[in-house]
């Protein structure tokens, strides 16, 4: 097996063009899959016997919450790769991920509290999941804050990468400490092992919607990655040629 495909990912011009080529595929499939998932979830799926139509917010809430954690992991892995092998493009990926992840965390919190008002009678409860999601938002904000406080790009990259890696180690500890601290959020509807506690006609649109949101994330990150690469390489000749 040759590793040239992997080594080429370290080259900014190659990554810039690759991101540009892949982006429309992800964007169009995301649009298609999200529409399909939302139509199936909001129109076709049956109403819940207890929560009525209110439960349908999960078709936005669950994908956003899932992405908020997945993007943090991506960010940490990219930052770790950048820190260890000193790959500039990896740092650009981490930088591109952070604002997207923070936005999905904010969406998960907002939809969660909109769901909480009719179901639990209050917009906010100090429930473990809500609290750990809120702390995740602060972790994202800290990461972006640290990144923006250095003028030197290389220092910003490396310092924020250390923080992202520390965050990855810490996220499970925060998660479980908060769970032991106070347990109203309904248990998880999805699990890899064991039986899902959600009816199939409701589950399928949820999975479709999660896939759609994930594709959307990929498309957005590719656009942001192109921007990051351009910003970092603005004095290089290939940029002038690419933009000419």
């Amino acid at each position: 097996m040759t590793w040239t495909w992997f080594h080429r990912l370290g080259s900014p011009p190659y990554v810039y063009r690759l991101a540009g080529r892949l982006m429309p595929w992800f964007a169009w499939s995301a649009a298609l899959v999200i529409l399909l998932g939302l139509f199936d979830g909001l129109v076709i799926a049956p109403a819940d016997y207890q929560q009525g139509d209110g439960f349908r917010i999960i078709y936005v809430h669950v994908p956003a919450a899932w992405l908020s954690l997945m993007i943090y992991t991506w960010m940490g892995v990219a930052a770790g790769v950048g820190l260890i092998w000193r790959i500039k493009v990896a740092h650009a990926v981490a930088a591109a991920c952070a604002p997207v992840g923070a936005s999905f965390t904010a969406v998960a919190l907002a939809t969660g509290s909109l769901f909480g008002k009719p179901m639990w009678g209050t917009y906010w409860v100090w429930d473990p999941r809500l609290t750990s999601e809120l702390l995740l938002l602060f972790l994202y904000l800290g990461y972006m804050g640290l990144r923006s406080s250095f003028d030197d790009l290389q220092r910003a990259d490396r310092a924020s990468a250390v923080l992202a890696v520390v965050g990855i180690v810490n996220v499970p500890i925060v998660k479980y400490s908060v769970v032991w601290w106070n347990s109203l959020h309904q248990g998880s509807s999805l699990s890899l092992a064991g039986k899902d506690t959600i009816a199939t006609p409701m589950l399928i649109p949820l999975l479709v919607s999660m896939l759609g949101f994930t594709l959307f994330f990929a498309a957005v990150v590719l656009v942001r990655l192109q921007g990051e690469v351009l910003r970092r390489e603005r004095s290089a000749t290939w940029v002038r040629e690419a933009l000419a």
Partner: protein
Amino acid sequence: MNALRLVLMRDLMLAVRRPEHCVHPLAFFLLVTTLFPLAISPQLSQLRLIAPGVLWVAALLSALLALEFLFRDDAADGTLEQYALSGQSLTWLLLAKTAAHWLLTGLPLALVAPLAGAALGVPVSAFPGITATLGLGSLALSLIGSIGAALTLGVRRGGVLLSILVLPLVVPVLIFGSQATTLAIRGEAVAAPMELLGAIVVLAVTLAPLAAAAAVRISLE
């Protein structure tokens, strides 16, 4: 090991000659705990309920204040750079510095905490428990905080940023610590949250100096 002892002794000596770095966070801690009775109610029965939270939040804020001084002076006068160039392991030297920092800020705070507790209506029987939980907890705060302090080296007005970086990371310490203190005040067994706190300290002793050393190296580049 010799270098470790030298760094530890040097930091302790510096603190003896310039005590304000350790005295100010302590004064801040006592002041913050004084604000709560003024803001809420002077009734001891009410204050006793919120005492663990008040003690821990005040300890957290005071620890953040103290963390600003952990590396700042040594970074400014080039001492950290000499440590990095000394051929000794920077990780170990930073562990020694953090240990000195805990001896100078965390331990005194744990020792005066019963005083603040007494003012909040905590019974005398809970004093050892309060000192033990805050002593162990502040060790974790110093270690985890050392990463934040190292990352914000060279950042202008890094104090606010330091709090945003460190506070979400130390939430588990706050949770288990205030749980242990609550149990101690009620006169119940504190072993379970103390063991979890201990586990966090063990993990932090192992990993935090590594991350802090990486961060200090980045700041020297």
